[in-house]
């Protein structure tokens, strides 16, 4: 795969990630039915729920991890891709890239937990958890951002843009 393709693919994935971010957050990721009460939850709804139940730190963590982090990742990625070919703050980009790679694997924890919850949380009429389309978008978003980070190799940070090279 040529660096150019990598670059374009990464860019395309980041754009896709941004697009997916909307349905991922606007559509409910899961439906919790507890004693007949059907409660569709979006990511932010879940944060709200946690916040209202008094679990402010947890709400904060979830908000950061599930709500903010994906978009931060996409933003960082977008920034790095935007600076592709320039020689601005290359060491910072390297550091950020390494960081993104590192936390990238953890991003799926939400989906992992959701899938466990969906599998386990089938208590008949008392409670049930069902994954909703939002989760699909969410995981797609995560996949997009992970792939984008993975495809955009660190050496490409150091590549000069073709125009500049000319």
């Amino acid at each position, binding site marked *: 795969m*040529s660096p150019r*393709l990598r670059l374009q693919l990464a860019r395309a994935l980041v*754009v896709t990630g941004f697009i*997916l971010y909307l349905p991922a957050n606007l*559509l409910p990721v899961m439906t919790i039915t507890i004693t007949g*009460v059907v409660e569709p939850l979006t990511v932010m709804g879940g944060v709200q729920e946690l916040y209202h139940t008094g679990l402010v730190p947890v709400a904060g963590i979830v908000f950061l991890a599930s709500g903010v982090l994906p978009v931060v990742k996409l933003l960082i990625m977008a920034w790095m891709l935007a600076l592709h070919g320039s020689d601005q703050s290359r060491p910072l980009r390297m550091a950020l890239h390494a960081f993104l790679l590192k936390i990238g694997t953890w991003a799926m924890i939400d989906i992992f937990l959701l899938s466990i919850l969906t599998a386990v949380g089938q208590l008949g009429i008392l409670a049930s958890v069902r994954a909703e389309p939002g989760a699909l*978008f969410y995981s797609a978003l995560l996949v997009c951002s992970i792939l984008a980070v993975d495809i955009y190799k660190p050496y490409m940070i150091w590549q000069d843009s073709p125009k500049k090279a000319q």
Partner: protein
Amino acid sequence: MNTEEPKREKEDHGEIVATHTGNIAWVWIFPILAAMVAGWLFWKQWESLGPKIEITFEDAPGIQAGKTQLLYRGVKSGSVEAVELDKDLNHVVVKVQLEAFAAELASKNTDFWIERPVISLTELNGLESIIQGNSIQARTQGGPPETQFTGLNKQPLLPLEKGAFTIRLQSKTIPLINRGAPVYNRGIKVGVVRKKGFDEKGRPTLDLYIDKEYRSTVRTNSQFWPIEATALQLGQQGLKLDIAGIDALIQGGISFDHFGEPGAEAASNSVFEFSLNEFDARTCGKTFTVLFQEGRGLIAGATKVCYLGHPIGLIDSVEAVPASHSVKTTMRFYPEYDAIVDSATKLSLVCPRISLEGVTGLDTLITGVYIDMQPGVGGKPATELLGRTISDREWQTIQDERNGMLLTLYAHKLPTIDKGAPVFHRGLTVGTVLKKSLDSNDRATLQVVIKPEFRHLISGNSRFWRIPATSVKIGPGVLHVELESVEALLQGGVQFESFGTSIKSESPVSEFQLFDDKKTAQAESTPIRIRFDNGRGLVAGRSELRYLGVPVGIVENVETKGQYVWVVARLNSGYDALRSQDAVYSVVRPNISLQGITGLETLVSGVYIECTPGSSKKMATSFVGKTTFDSEEITPTGLSVKLKAEGSPINPGASIYYRGISVGRITEKTLSLDGRDVLLTGVINRKYSHLVHENTKFWDASGLKATVGFLKFRIQTGSVIAPDGQVCFATPDNAAMGPASNDGDTFTLYSEPQADWAKWNPSIPTKE
């Protein structure tokens, strides 16, 4: 990429040229795809959204924005987007986003309400909302689109659909019937009370919802009445508490039915009258207006009209009319009785009455007064009738009057017999005195009615007499106090009996004489007249006629006419022999003499007239009475013989002896027709009458006789022992005695016996 490789090889001079950008444009398929999928999803979601509506509630407990759902027939048809208060904080505005498929809910006739759990004795509702939380429910009948709604405060009972079968009841007052109370038709629940309210005229109304499958049970002539949750009855069975059912006890219920022929099926939204109770409902016949003199105890909607004691009607309204000084009531009957109510119908108010006659209408103390209806004969159809206010007793009398036998009793005077006094027959009350009055002849008359079941007891020879309150009789040695019933003691009474064979007359007799007492009544009605020289001790209405010591009649009247005393007496029936021309009547008075004491019982019982029947077939009504001292003398109706003598010192009362035994008595001393002889009438005791035969010789044995030598003389002394003298007789021996003598045979009374007479010793067996 393969296309790139040869290029790169071709220009492999280390010269970097711009790659063909179009080659890798395909990567952009990812964002496009994502955008398309997301867009499609958003579009789909947007498409599923129906209109937004706003519902205003008084309060909205448990309604949460984003969570609470709008349910229609149990299906989520929308969700609450926002819950707000209006500006003046009086209402809650709930904004609901409807689903697209439920867009029809946003129409004008849709009702929204908050379903919350209701747990009460009568209903258990909205249980699911305990678990799921409150929800907003809707029902609709359609209508033009609308987005602003006012929510119901209460949950409506039934989903009101298009074409639901509802009927409306209206009444002056609606009893305690709650929303949701069941509606029964013959015990089957066919609907519920949907709404309580007022109509345009301010009359209370009840809206009923009838299940579609039962709508045929509602007919145009259906009658509706509330089910009495509890009925406390104080009656003959004691105190009785009926509880229709727990639900009825708490929220009441409505029952309906049609009486008589079923009418056509009622249309939806028809209006019916709501009756006060079942009885009120059943009496759905024509309305009659009845005027009463007095309306005491009449209660509209409660006082019943009874026919033969069976309630068939109800007073609808009671209203005093000052103009006519009466009480105007309207009443209705069971439809099937409409036909028998006409202008001849008697309607009488029965109320309790406590009087000397007794306590009547006591049941009405508990049941309240009622109106007794008696169908009349020959009435014309009418809707305006006249009622009467009477007591139960009077009602009874009316009953009797209608069915019973009316009699008129007349008497000279009528003491202590009141209206309502009983008429007895052998101790049974068989009738009542209706009226006491004077007739045109100035006679006191009693109108008496005999109950129908006893009318056969009245015959031509029935005798009526007054029952005195008490009678004290002093019989021989016995003081007899006769105390009639207390009732009779207070108001007197009339008793009757038929003596002798009953005479069935063709036309029923309706006029009778009322006698003073039983004895007078018992005596045969054709009186006999007896002439006495002296009427001492004879009391009208008291002195008896006796035959063989048994009372057979009564002296009815004692009057003097000329020099004689005329006694009018009545004989009991069956003693026709005593009417025979030659019957003998004699007054028995007490006599104390040396001979003995006779008629002593008359000291106590009073003087009586002893009767001796005659043998003649000819009847007489006028007799000549005798005065005698001893009843015994007359009593032997035995053999009457005539003794002829030229002259005799013997007087009536002299005894007749046979072998020294007194067997008879001289009763009369007269001159013979030609005046030459003295005729003595002797009566031989029946027991000894067979001793007298044709050849029997009678002789005078009175006085002291002395025979001195051949000179016979007799000292005529009024014997101390037998002042009237003595007669003896002897009968020859069997061969010569001749046939037994008959009544009225004449014998010669010898002055002294011949010697051989004393030797006669016939054996004469008694006839018996």
